[in-house]
């Protein structure tokens, strides 16, 4: 296993744990956090690929990571706003009980 593969494996594991959290938690906030972890996993990929890339003078990977962190923050803000507002309406953020739309 090369160094790059180790980083990729770590990011895959992080991605999968985030996914597992998003798929299993009832609390909508923790589902959102799981998604944030998945975004972080992608960032690890970017930095690792940049680090092991042919020329580190091209900082594309670094820039992509910076931008994706900003995007993730904005997403978290919007997501938490939606969750809080939904709670104010229905007094729950339990995803299992949110099933009135179906079919």
């Amino acid at each position, binding site marked *: 296993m090369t160094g790059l593969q180790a980083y990729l494996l770590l990011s895959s594991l992080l991605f999968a744990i985030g996914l597992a*959290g998003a798929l299993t938690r009832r609390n909508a906030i923790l589902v959102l956090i799981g998604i944030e*972890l998945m975004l972080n996993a992608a960032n690890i990929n970017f930095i690792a690929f940049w680090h092991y890339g042919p020329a580190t003078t091209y900082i594309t990977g670094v820039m992509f990571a910076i931008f994706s*962190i900003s995007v993730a923050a904005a997403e978290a*803000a919007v997501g938490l706003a939606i969750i809080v507002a939904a709670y104010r309406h229905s007094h729950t953020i339990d995803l299992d009980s949110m099933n009135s739309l179906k079919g």
Partner: protein
Amino acid sequence: MSISFLIIAVLIVGSTAAAMGLRNPIHCVLTLSITFGGIAALFLQLGAEFVGLTQIMVYVGAVAILAVFAIMMTQSRRGLMLGTFSRNALVGLLTAVAVFSVLGWAVLSQPVAGVTAAVSPVSVQQIGSSLMHEYVLPLELIGLLLTAALIGAIVIAMERKEDTE
């Protein structure tokens, strides 16, 4: 593969697993901060100092705090403690395991060696000048995105009497 990497990796995986598995949401967010810190350390180790610092500022400083606020706001009223895991959580877990096996298999079966050249840490000046040159368009876009997200979040979360009658 260095020892430091191993330590950081174990830290990240352990704290992430805890963040996704603990019962109390507040504890989850606290362990999550450890994860974010670990990832920042990973970035530092790889020579991307600025990204590491951004990571700490944005995730630990903003996202985690926001999440704590949100958890407190959504749990006080009825004192209702949510059941931790949803129905069919096992299926979700198995799905995640399957995704990981596929990803892991792909990573391990492809020999991506990478070039282990001498790493020149990227300087803040370099990043700043790139942001003003090659990356000026994404920068503008991010600005718009943050504006839109800010206004949207405020409108949504704003509580007005006539809105929630």
